[in-house]
């Protein structure tokens, strides 16, 4: 169910609860109003009955005939008032009680009249008066109890309603929160996976709500990224092969051209050349052939994957050793060094020689890019939440133009005026990729360049791989 629908549902349920409670309270209130009205009537009747009984006592004590007359007058006055309120009384107490009351009143009047007429019985008057008063007091007492019960019931209903609304709100909040939390956790998991380059689909099915749609969108994006990355790698590889082939062609064409030109010149001028000159030509051809062989061997060396000597090493120590190797260059170039080593750095599984090759290469590049007085900064970072370690080599040099930045890892690409083979970063990239890592580069013109090497925290693989190496060695 979508979150918005759940919120609407919770609103609807709460509003329904409030309506029910309101309706019940209103009903109780109406009933109470009716009861109170009846109590007023009953009170005034009771007062009237009390006055009658006082008059009755006056007659019995002082034989005051006037008192009997006043009783009759009161009864006659009360009768219409009683009839007027008949409906109200019947609603509250029921028709039987009303009839009984009227009957008792009529009996009482009959007995009083008989006494006035002189043939009555005092005892009958007293009994019927007493019966009237007892009955009316009983009704009032019963109604009072009912009112108290009603108030009690209303109170309970309000409490129950309050608890129901509260419970419902809590339930909905919990329901929403837990499903939102689940989806958010999934999103975090997914984005972490993408950050680590894992583009596989999430194992759990996304929830059918809005956040589920977000999870779905991220998942689709991840798949797209995966496709694009493969595409990019493929096209980059093709471009690299193009650059490689062009570079190789250039490196091979020069000595080939030399040999060819020597041969052509020899063919044209052989009868005019002295034997010394002829020998020089042949030697030159041999030298150029040697040059070709050297280029080809170098190329094969770079292309051939070397067997890794993986062991656990301290990255900070490796970096320190590399700085030792370029110490002379630093001194000559008047370059300062700044070290920010992360002391929490755990042991990493790597081929020390290869990583040294990469770091020294980057340090030399950095030193060569800087004017005297520049600073070489080496930073290591332990990033357990990203499950990787990083080492950064930064310079304050001239920077790499953005147009060239995407080619710097291509073979035979060099920005150096002299002595650059254009193979250093290409080989470095291969080594780091082979370690399951990655290299990133940031550069700003006249501000400097930063190379970041990311290596996975893979100590468990280290153990396994060195085991399998040991087995291989054993086999040999």
């Amino acid at each position: 169910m979508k979150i918005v629908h759940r919120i609407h549902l919770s609103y609807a349920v709460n509003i329904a609860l409030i309506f029910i409670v309101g309706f019940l309270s209103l009903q109780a209130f109406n009933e109470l109003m009716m009861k109170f009205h009846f109590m007023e009537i009953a009170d005034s009747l009771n007062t009237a009955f009390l006055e009658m009984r006082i008059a009755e006592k006056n007659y019995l004590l002082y034989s005051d005939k006037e008192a009997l007359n006043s009783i009759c007058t009161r009864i006659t006055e009360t009768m219409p008032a009683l009839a007027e309120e008949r409906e109200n009384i019947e609603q509250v107490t029921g028709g039987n009680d009303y009839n009984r009351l009227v009957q008792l009143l009529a009996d009482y009047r009959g007995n009083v009249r008989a006494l006035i007429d002189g043939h009555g019985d005092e005892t009958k008057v007293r009994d019927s008066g007493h019966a009237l008063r007892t009955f009316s007091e009983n009704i009032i007492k019963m109604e009072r109890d009912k009112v108290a019960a009603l108030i009690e019931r209303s109170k309970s209903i309000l409490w129950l309603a309050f608890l129901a609304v509260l419970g419902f709100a809590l339930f909905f909040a919990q329901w929403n929160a837990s499903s939102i939390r689940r989806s958010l956790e999934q999103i975090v998991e997914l984005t972490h996976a993408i950050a680590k380059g894992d583009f596989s689909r999430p194992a759990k099915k996304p929830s059918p709500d809005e956040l589920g749609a977000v999870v779905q969108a991220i998942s689709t994006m991840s798949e797209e990224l995966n496709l694009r990355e493969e595409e990019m790698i493929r096209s980059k590889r093709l471009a690299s092969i193009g650059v490689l082939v062009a570079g190789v062609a250039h490196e091979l064409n020069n000595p080939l051209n030399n040999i060819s030109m020597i041969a052509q010149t020899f063919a044209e001028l052989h009868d005019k050349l002295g034997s010394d000159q002829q020998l020089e030509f042949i030697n030159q051809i041999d030298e150029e052939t040697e040059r070709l062989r050297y280029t080809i061997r170098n190329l094969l060396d770079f292309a051939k994957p070397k067997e890794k000597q993986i062991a656990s090493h301290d990255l900070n120590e490796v970096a320190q050793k590399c700085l030792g190797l370029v110490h002379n260059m630093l001194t000559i170039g008047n370059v300062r060094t700044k070290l920010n080593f992360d002391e929490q750095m755990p042991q990493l599984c790597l081929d020390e020689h290869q990583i040294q090759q990469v770091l020294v290469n980057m340090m030399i590049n950095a030193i060569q890019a800087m004017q005297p007085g520049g600073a070489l900064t080496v930073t290591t970072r332990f990033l357990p939440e990203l499950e990787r370690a990083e080492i950064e080599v930064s310079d304050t040099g001239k920077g790499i133009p953005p147009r060239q930045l995407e080619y710097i890892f291509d073979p035979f690409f060099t920005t150096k005026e002299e002595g650059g083979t254009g193979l250093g970063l290409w080989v470095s990239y291969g080594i780091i990729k082979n370690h399951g890592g990655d290299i990133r580069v940031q550069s700003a013109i006249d501000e400097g360049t930063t190379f970041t090497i990311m290596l996975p925290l893979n100590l468990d693989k280290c153990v396994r791989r060195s085991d399998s190496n040991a087995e291989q060695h054993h086999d040999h």
Partner: protein
Amino acid sequence: MQSSIMIIDDERIVGDMAKLSLSQEGYDVETFLDGESALKRLEEKTFQVVVTDLKMKGVDGLEVLRIVKEKYPQTVVIMITAFANLDVAIEALRDDVFDFFPKPVKIKELKASIRRALAGEEAGGAA
């Protein structure tokens, strides 16, 4: 008048062999291993043809071409390069260079090209 030809290539053998061969045709040939010294020499002496390599450290073939076209418009430039596959660059240079040779260079073709260049220059000079 003896025609003067300048060869610029950081591969020493290219200059040596071209000089040996071209001298047989009666040309006055001078060779240079880099752009800087060649440009310096151009300030002192007029060359009818400059044969230059494209990719060189420092002042490269394009720079030489630009300066020759600017300062010595009578001089013909022939470009050679070890980059075999530079169709776009070659196309871009078509108008400015007299000819373009990928390495390995056929010396006979280079000679023929120089001959055409000199004939064209003389024809242009006579007109």
